């Protein structure tokens, strides 16, 4: 039998002026398993905590119930006090009689006192069934893997190596650099890419901590945070290694236009990448027409690919800078030059004579071939009329789309992709470089089309996230996880389907098929508990027995009152 101690807080007037604390304490004393019940003016004060700790020791309490305010702010404090007095911190139950009682029932003191009694009876019922829990620990293999050797992946890898962490870079092509291999200069500040990539490569190549695998792809992947097993096919051979964390940096690719705007028929209609190649070779045209939002921001592919406007601004200015007389026109639907430097680039382009014309989705430009290039007829929304312009080249700004093989990578890593095929982060607002699966991170255009500086920032962010468990050497495993009663488990697999974190798998224990919770991955939500038809799955600290006991305590309590 558990010895339960109940400590009721007055919280000054906040509880004490509404709830008859002394009466509640007397009531608590006669509850089953209660060894001692007491009250404090402020349980959370030094004095209050001191008296709770003293009582735990003197009364040899096994479990502590505090009836006061909210666990959201005060639970850690009381748990710490329990620990200091030698009671496992999970043998503690918080009953909220302030926010959930005295503050809302201030006008009905009687009812508030009765409610406080019942809440405490429920708390004691649950507390009597609590079992000690321990946050687990798993060791972390101090090695990271980065999938993809473009700017985001290289940055992540270089940062990890520079932090002293052994890192594998897995690149599918024969050389590092990714998309930037085909782009010589990036905006908005016209930085050359070759030295950027070269320095990152050199950083990695000179470090014994870095292992670069070219022409490689992952063929098998298992394990979880701290302990992943990776098998890669590297050219003709396969290699195995273990890592503690994985960063996905597989990037994106330029959409090849389908047969729109004469692409493929009119040779002077080219893609942005093709233009990059020509400009890198020093050949600037005398006139150019850029068409923005080609095959995006339209039904079927609704998204804006974020970077194309700035790429166009950069290339328009490169043309003008090498040939001040060049005629450059940008046909667009909105210029997306957000921020400081990009907006300045937009202004500079306008001031340098680049002409910007806005077209509508319903009246896209029409292209026809000409002897010395192509001519474009467009309905200018500002001028409200059709305009004909001609250019030596027409550049189609197509969006960045998700990388080839994303679905396969997603499946291997058990992480999700969004409807456009980009990887789906754990939370779009606050966890942009994490997956819901612990130990796997994401950066760069594999998540969403991103500018180089953004890719670098995300690469660093992913490196930080991967470094945290590795530096710590261990990961703390949530104590409030699900656990399987092997005997009861029928191996129906409902829990596997219900788990949003891929934390449950079917396994065989002593020749018996049953579910197994990987505690390192379990977040303790308990959805599997409700999905289990057999009560075989239980959530520590919230077992159905404990909840049932709370309900019984409430009802028993009410019936007794009714009898009175």
């Amino acid at each position, binding site marked *: 039998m558990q010895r339960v101690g109940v400590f009721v807080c007055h919280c000054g007037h906040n509880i004490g002026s509404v709830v008859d604390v002394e009466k509640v304490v007397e009531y608590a004393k006669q509850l089953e398993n209660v060894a001692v019940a007491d009250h404090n003016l402020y349980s959370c004060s030094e004095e209050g905590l001191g008296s709770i700790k003293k009582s735990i020791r003197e009364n040899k309490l096994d479990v502590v119930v505090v009836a006061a305010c909210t666990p959201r702010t005060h639970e850690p404090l009381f748990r710490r006090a329990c620990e200091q007095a030698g009671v496992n911190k999970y043998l503690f139950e918080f009953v909220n009689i302030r926010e959930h009682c005295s503050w809302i029932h201030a006008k009905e003191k009687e009812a508030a006192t009765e409610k406080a009694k019942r809440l405490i009876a429920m708390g004691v019922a649950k507390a009597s069934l609590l079992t000690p829990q321990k946050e687990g620990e798993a060791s972390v293999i101090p090695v990271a893997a980065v999938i993809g050797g473009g700017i985001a992946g290289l940055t992540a890898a270089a940062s990890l190596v520079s*932090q002293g962490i052994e890192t594998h870079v897995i690149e599918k092509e024969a050389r590092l650099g990714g998309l930037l291999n085909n782009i010589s200069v990036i905006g908005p500040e016209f930085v050359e890419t070759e030295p950027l990539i070269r320095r990152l490569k050199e950083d990695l190549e000179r470090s014994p901590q870095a292992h670069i695998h070219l022409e490689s792809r992952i063929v098998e992947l298992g394990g979880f945070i701290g302990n992943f097993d990776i098998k890669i096919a590297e050219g003709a051979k396969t290699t195995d290694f273990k890592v503690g964390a994985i960063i996905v940096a597989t990037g994106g690719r330029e959409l090849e236009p389908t047969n729109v705007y004469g692409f493929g028929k009119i040779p002077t209609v080219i893609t942005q990448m093709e233009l990059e190649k020509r400009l890198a070779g020093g050949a600037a045209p005398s006139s150019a027409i850029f068409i923005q939002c080609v095959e995006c921001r339209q039904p079927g592919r609704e998204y804006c690919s974020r970077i194309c406007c700035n790429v166009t601004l950069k290339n328009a200015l490169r043309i003008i800078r090498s040939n001040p007389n060049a005629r450059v026109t940008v046909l667009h639907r909105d210029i997306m030059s957000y921020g400081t430097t990009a907006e300045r680039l937009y202004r500079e382009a306008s001031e340098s004579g680049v002409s910007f014309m806005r077209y509508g989705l319903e009246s896209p430009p029409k292209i026809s071939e000409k002897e010395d290039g192509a001519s474009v007829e467009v309905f200018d929304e500002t001028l409200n009329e059709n305009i004909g312009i001609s250019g030596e080249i027409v550049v189609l700004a197509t969006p960045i789309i998700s990388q080839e093989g994303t679905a396969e990578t997603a499946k291997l890593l058990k992480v999700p992709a969004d409807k456009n095929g980009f990887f789906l982060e754990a939370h779009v607002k606050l966890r942009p470089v994490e997956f819901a699966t612990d130990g796997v991170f994401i950066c760069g255009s594999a998540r969403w089309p991103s500018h180089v500086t953004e890719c670098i*920032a995300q690469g660093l962010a992913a490196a*930080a996230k991967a470094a945290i468990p590795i530096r710590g050497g261990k990961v703390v495993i949530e104590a409030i996880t699900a656990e399987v009663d092997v005997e009861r488990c029928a191996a129906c697999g409902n829990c596997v389907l219900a788990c949003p974190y891929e934390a449950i798998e079917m396994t065989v224990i002593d020749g018996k098929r049953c579910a197994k919770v990987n505690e390192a991955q379990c977040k303790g939500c308990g959805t599997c508990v409700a999905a289990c038809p057999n009560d075989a799955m239980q959530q520590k600290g919230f077992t159905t027995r404990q909840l049932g006991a709370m309900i019984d305590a409430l009802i028993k309590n009410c019936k007794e009152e009714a009898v009175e």
Partner: protein
Amino acid sequence: MKENVVVIGAGIAGIQASLDLADMGFSVHLIEKTPSIGGHMAQLDKTFPTNDCSMCILSPKMIMCAEHENITLHTYSEVDSIAGDFPRFKVGIREKARYIDLNRCTGCGDCVAKCPSKVPSEFEEGLSIRKAIYLPFPQAVPRKMTIDAENCRKIKDNKCGVCLKVCQAGAVDYDQKGRIVELDAAVIVIATGFDLMDATALPQFGYGICKDVVSSMQFERILSASGPTGGHLVRPSDDKEPVNLAFVQCVGSRDAKNHLYCSSVCCMYATKESILATEHAPDVKITIFYMDMRAVGKGFQEFVQRAKKSHGVRYVRSRPAKVQQANGDNGVLVSYETPGMTGEPVSEEYDMLILCPALLPSSSTREIAKMLDMELDDDGFFRTPDIRYPTDSSKKGILICGFSGAPMDIPDSVSQASGVAARTAELLSGGDR
């Protein structure tokens, strides 16, 4: 010994940087000038494009900061001085007197109920009042009171003293003095965020002149369930539900006379606030006057399409020239030119107008820059000169994240904040590249 890292500014960028640095094992000192951490994100009702409740996702991080063994919070504190160089900076922190013993205050609020001195609430953007002794918002961290000396009758005039009397915890101390804490820091992270431009500087938009012109942050509070109107969409002049609302984008930004740059987030938050407004008041009609609809993030275009198609939001590409009082005290008259070459000047009446002003580098940004003798860029943000290190300032060991480096949304700020942790680890591992 754990190396110290000082993080200046406890908005979402500073909070995230602190958490990641602390998780890496550094000893973090997080400095915040207001009484609570949380920054602007705490004021937001929802976040785009998922309309996640802002406080719901922020509050757990705030609590984590308070509980982390490697984080020391210095709220209601400012940087007094910074000296030295990487990796041996000396930082002086001025902890202002809050006249409250933090060890004793239980945050119960008995004192607030009795305090007679009423002051416009900063958190509610002046739309409601707080007391001179106050908790800036219910989820504040730390959940401890602060006495604002300027408005306290006891401290100012030696009258009143009621809070001392009602506090059963004995936490009120009118004689408390501010103090300077000297710290060694290996790395300093600046996350000083933004301020909204004061739109009274642009009288053509009617802010401060017409009652029913509000800033977007004020509107955010009006929409918030925990805000001054309890989530009821009403306009300030007569507390009536508006039927016809308009937003004006790029107020003071993308404007050669004021701020050249684009604040990056206004298109999306205006779209979000429009959707939320129609959710509060299904019949409300909304117009957004914009220049370019910059919906460049994940799910953003779809969000704008949703606003158009499902919520009937009208997007008009035009910048209003003039905002005047409509007939009587309520509503406004907005004059603008219809889009296109044949644009004609028109005037339309709206019940309420929301301005999306330029988001400026915060005043702290300028102060810190001055203290460090660092030059800011042409737009007033910290320079990050090397593209390889987008969070490194021009001074080694001083790192920048979030809005103090350039306008950006929450996920970009959070990414940079984590990036700063990686850079700190690199710098302090000696493996500098």
